[in-house]
């Protein structure tokens, strides 16, 4: 788990499947307003793709380093979500009333769409970073010199 998986089949399949999982997460995120899904599920799917990344390639590999970097984003999702609410306040409405999202050139449905999409991106980022943080804490808590967070 701490170094690269030695099976070439696992590595090749992961190279194929991890981007697919991430693409599916993006699809769920952006399509969540019209079908099942949304920010929460998209964030978890992205988390599982990242877990698969460092399970297969190890934390030392470039991909694993990228997963570690994600940990620095703790709280950014919450800031995005609250920031959307704040923008609605600035626009003259209630907190999180997307109709008051004053973006020039957007009509009412597009404002709602943008507001909900940004809020869902916030949820997805928050869930993804939290999931990867919990898994890394559980998996590597006894070997803290192996990684620097």
């Amino acid at each position, binding site marked *: 788990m701490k170094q690269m998986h030695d099976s070439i089949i696992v590595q090749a399949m992961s190279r194929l499947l991890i981007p697919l999982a991430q693409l599916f997460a993006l699809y769920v995120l952006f399509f*969540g307003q019209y079908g*099942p899904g949304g920010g929460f*599920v998209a964030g978890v799917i992205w988390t599982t793709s990242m877990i698969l990344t460092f399970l297969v390639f190890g934390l030392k590999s470039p991909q694993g380093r990228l997963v570690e970097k994600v940990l620095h984003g703790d*709280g950014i*999702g919450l800031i995005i979500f609250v920031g959307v609410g704040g923008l609605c306040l600035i626009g003259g409405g209630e*907190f999180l009333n997307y109709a008051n999202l004053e973006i020039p050139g957007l009509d009412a449905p597009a404002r709602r769409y943008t507001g*909900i999409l940004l809020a869902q991106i916030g949820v997805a980022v928050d*869930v993804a970073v939290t999931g990867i943080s919990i898994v890394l804490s559980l998996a590597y808590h006894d070997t803290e010199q192996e990684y620097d967070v």
Partner: protein
Amino acid sequence: MMYSVNIALLLLLVLTAASATFLVKELMSSVFILGSYSFFLSLVWAWLGAVDVAFVEAVIGAGLGTVLFLVTLFDTAPKDSRLRRPPPPLAGVLGLPLLGLLLLLAANDLPQFGDPTSPPNVHISPVYLQNSYADTLTPNVVTSVLMDYRAFDTLIETVVIFTAGIACALLLREPGS
């Protein structure tokens, strides 16, 4: 008639998975049976028409939950060390079936599934179904309820998840790392 067969089948799957979770001694197998249990449960949700809940159950319960259990298992013994478990107390053996019988009796008073006159279907659901597009201009009712009518709810949920992550990092990571 077909519905009752479906319910019996899905209940059987759920019951099998739940009992196997208690009967299997090896913890690794228990984790995987727990994951399959989540998949069965998500089937039940999907069959009931709650596609969003089914999606979340499959992804969280069967995906992330299994991973979390597995990662925890790497730090513990793979087998249940209490090889001679104490026999269950007599009160439990006799009382739990009685309790289940009482619950089944009480379940008879629940409204029929899909009954249009049941309280959940006449109280607030019609309001959302009729007004959500005019109010929120979002075609998906679930999204409009989750992210618009009750956006505060979702915001606080996100705060809870964030707090859970911070608490896990504080408790599990060694100081100074």
